[in-house]
């Protein structure tokens, strides 16, 4: 055997080093198990949402492994990023570098998921997100949304109004003075003007108020048929609904999904309509139970979307392979009907996710879907 | 003898109360001048006015022949007026010499940018000033403690460090606010010796005290305040005999 030259020696040493480094990487597939990263807010201010995301992934992984239809065992590796954007960045880095994860799911809140997406995009790692913010799929080429972008949810509300609004009926817009509230109200106003409707009144409020009597009184004077609410603070939504009921406001409220607001509002939530990509209705009982089995009391859209995302991921790796490139390629040509929602269609240009949301009314015991009409 | 410091007609009002009421004080060059009065007589207010800490409602202050009325205290300090306070203002966790070096502030010429990288100029100047500070420490018998943390010193020696810091600024007028406060009796005598020695080596000193015994023995001249007004002014022997002083101050403390 020929003696190794200096360069060859270096190359051999380097490949040995790489091999050693490869051993320490835990992500991807080693033939039997497929490990992937779930970076989520398990603790801190957004834990309610982050835990939903985790439950959805875990429920799907359990189903995938139980089905026996796949060659590999699915093993989500969960990183708690503590609702802190700096830790979310660091967790995403750990996932894609030290741990060599081929794909990342989460986190949920936009201030956490944006920096995580910066990390995954630079590392060429596909990223499944549930955030409703437009920017998250507009600005990155590696993100795939498993939910409905906020302007499309608002569009769903407007479609409902267009179908239902009688000539003598009117619409009001109410929003919290938060980023979510302000941008939601602006979108709704624009979309309303496209169907030729001018809101009778627009009220922006500080979501930390205790007394909404002035706001409700203003609404009573304007007496709109529908009140479109953009407010993501559950306690605030509940306060508005309760005081509206006490003061006898008759309007139909349609609000964005603020998980927990129904429980907090109690009786006042009866008749309240919410727009969301998914509802835990009787028809969805099977999925709802699976999610509850993962330890969350009231499954919401986040857990259902995370469930579908993980199921879609299973299909992708089954058809394409387990590397980052394989997964990206598979997602960019994905056409998948999930358990929570049908019609997940992605391409390299369109990674926005669902085109429509649903509207459901709370009848006091459960949600009834009122839109789209079946 | 010319007056180094001359305050005339000083007035300070706090609401309806006139804390300092048309006070004249004249401190002669090279003298050890005492300012006494019972608690609440307005001594500290008067000193604060003279040293630029408190506002002057009316009256004038002349220092070294210049009108310095209302001048900020750091400007007065750079003109040569140094003072100490009733309570300690030292850096407890720094060494004695570093504390006293603070008194050299106005004499150090290097500027901020030099200090960022401790240029040779800073090294040179610091060394020079340290030598001078050592001399002051030796004069006050503090040299052996130069590198000790202030917090480790006894109360009395800390007061000496404060005095050293004021002296280190090479003042033309040294204003001491109750230097004997809190000192045990034997120390008061030592302090008296120190002050006399300083006067003999050429310092002009204005001492504020309510300890009348100390001032009577060491002062060249005294001004007695009571309820914001000057009730006596002159050499201790004369002041001692003044009926107003006996009534306002000594009279109440026959046993003192």
């Amino acid at each position, binding site marked *: 055997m020929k003696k190794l030259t200096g360069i060859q020696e270096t190359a051999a040493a380097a490949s040995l080093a790489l091999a050693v480094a490869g051993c320490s990487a835990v992500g991807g597939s080693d033939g039997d198990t497929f490990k992937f990263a779930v970076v989520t807010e*398990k*603790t801190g201010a957004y834990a309610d949402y982050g835990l939903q995301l985790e439950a959805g992934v875990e429920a799907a992984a359990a189903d995938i492994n139980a089905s026996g239809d796949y060659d590999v065992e699915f093993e989500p590796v969960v990183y*708690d990023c*503590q609702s802190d*954007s*700096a*830790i979310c*960045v*660091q967790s995403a*880095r750990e996932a894609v570098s*030290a741990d060599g994860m081929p794909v990342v799911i989460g986190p949920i809140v936009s*201030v956490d998921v944006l*920096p995580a997406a*910066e990390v995954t995009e630079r590392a060429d790692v596909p990223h499944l997100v549930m955030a409703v913010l437009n*920017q998250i799929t507009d*600005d990155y080429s590696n993100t795939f949304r498993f939910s409905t972008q906020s302007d499309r949810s608002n569009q769903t509300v407007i479609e409902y109004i267009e179908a239902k609004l009688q000539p003598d009926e009117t619409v009001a817009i109410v929003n919290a003075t938060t980023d979510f509230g302000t941008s939601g109200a602006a979108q709704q106003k624009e979309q309303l003007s496209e169907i030729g409707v001018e809101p009778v009144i627009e009220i922006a409020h500080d979501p930390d108020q205790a007394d909404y009597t002035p706001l409700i009184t203003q609404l009573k004077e304007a007496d709109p048929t529908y009140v479109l609410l953009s407010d993501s603070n559950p306690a605030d939504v509940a306060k508005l609904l309760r005081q509206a009921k006490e003061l006898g406001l008759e309007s139909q409220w349609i609000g964005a999904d603020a998980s927990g607001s129904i429980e907090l509002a109690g009786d006042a939530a009866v008749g309240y309509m919410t727009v969301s990509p998914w509802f835990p209705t009787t028809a969805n009982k099977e999925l709802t139970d699976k999610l509850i089995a993962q330890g969350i009391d009231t499954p919401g859209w986040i857990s259902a979307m995370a469930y579908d995302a993980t199921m879609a991921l299973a299909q992708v790796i089954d058809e394409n392979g387990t590397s980052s490139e394989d997964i990206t390629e598979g997602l960019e040509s994905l056409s998948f009907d999930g358990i929570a929602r049908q019609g997940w269609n992605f391409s390299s240009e369109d990674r926005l996710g669902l085109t429509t949301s649903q509207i459901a009314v709370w009848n006091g015991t459960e949600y009834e879907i009122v839109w789209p009409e079946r | 003898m010319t007056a180094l410091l001359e305050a005339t007609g000083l007035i300070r009002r706090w609401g309806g109360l006139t804390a300092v009421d048309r006070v004249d004080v004249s401190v002669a060059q090279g003298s050890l001048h005492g300012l006494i009065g019972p608690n609440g007589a307005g001594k500290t207010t008067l000193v604060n006015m003279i040293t*630029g*800490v408190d506002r002057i409602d009316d009256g004038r202050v002349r220092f070294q022949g210049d009108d310095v009325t209302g001048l*900020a*205290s*750091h400007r007065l*300090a*750079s003109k040569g007026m*140094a003072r*100490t306070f009733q309570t300690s*203002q*030292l*850096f407890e*966790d*720094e060494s004695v010499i*570093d504390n006293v*070096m*603070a*008194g050299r*502030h*106005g004499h*150090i010429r*290097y500027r*901020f940018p030099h*200090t*960022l*990288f*401790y240029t040779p100029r*800073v090294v040179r100047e*610091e060394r020079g000033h*340290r030598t001078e500070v050592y001399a002051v420490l030796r004069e006050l*018998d503090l040299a*052996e403690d*130069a*590198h*000790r*943390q202030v917090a*480790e010193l*006894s109360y009395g*020696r800390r007061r000496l460090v404060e005095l050293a*810091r004021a002296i280190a600024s090479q003042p033309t007028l040294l204003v001491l606010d109750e230097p004997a406060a809190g000192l*045990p009796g*034997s*120390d008061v005598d*030592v302090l008296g010796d120190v002050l006399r020695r300083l006067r003999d080596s050429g310092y002009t000193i204005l001492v504020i005290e309510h300890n009348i015994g100390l001032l009577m023995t060491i002062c060249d001249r005294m001004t007695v305040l009571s309820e914001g007004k000057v009730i006596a002014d002159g050499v201790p022997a004369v002041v001692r005999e003044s009926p107003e002083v006996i009534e306002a101050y000594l009279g109440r403390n026959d046993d003192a």
Partner: protein
Amino acid sequence: MTDTLTRPHSPPVPGPGAERRASLLATMAGAVLLIVAAAVPALTDFSTTYLMAYVLIVALLGLSLHLLMGLMGTFSLGQAALFGTGAYAAVVVSEDVGLDGAIGFVLVAAIGALLGLVMGAVTLRVSDLYLALTTLAIGYILENVVRNTDWLGGSQGLTGFYITFFGRSLDDPRLLCWIGLGVLTLFMIMISSMRRSKIGRAFMAVRESPIAARSIGVDARRYKLLGFAMAGAFSAIAGALYSAWSLVVNPSVFSIDLTLSVLAIAIVGGLRSMPGILVVAALLTYFRNSAADFGVADYVLLVYGALIVLSLRFLPLGLGGLTGSRAVARVRRLVAHRSRSRGGGRA
């Protein structure tokens, strides 16, 4: 009655010679530490290097508190305002002005110093609680302004930017670490040389009492402004490095959370001790990042709070205060004395 004015008989204290030896020793130890720290990024993995860079950023902020609170005695809650301004300034300078970090960071430091000056000027006449609240309010104002400025990305902030240094992207965490280490070393040298000069003594005089400081000729206002300007420059540089580190800058960089966690580090480490702050910055940042691994993620704030309470109660000068405590001082003096009696020093 005890005589407290005359000098008691006690072992002589180390003279200037011993002091010089001690500072030489400290410098050498610092140099060794620096070399070791500089080697770490080359030897460890990507995410550990990033974690180290984050520690350095936090340590820089800690240093600015050391300067403002430890040396100058100004209780400021405006760290995040300065930090956030630096973070945004770095992106604007790099993306919109197109400057390389080697020049850009100097500009960022100048912007930070300017804001520090403004902060100092606004709080010139207030002290203590009012000063703390005013500096805090400046943070709130900036956060709100940025949130409503579309040019700065509004509430979502700025993303997708690239900061370079000498033409190389700071996406390389090793480069980020080395720059952070360089800046930290530079600032430490600046602070410690300043501390041994008239500037440091003026800061300390202002800390003990602005009135007394003036009486020894220190223009207290001028030094307060100087301190704020320097703290502003340091914090802004920390913010600039944070931009490169986090890849996204949003209005949360102005948040009180950041100020409070740095405050906790400075208090536990010792406001007057640079080494104490550095050690605690490393430990607490590692702890915070790995809290989930220890299973205590839910109790992070509790741990922080408990550390603050315990250190205020038992170590008011923080961990760094331990080295200045009487027991340690006594040992140090004994050692110095022994070395001197062997003929090393002079009185």
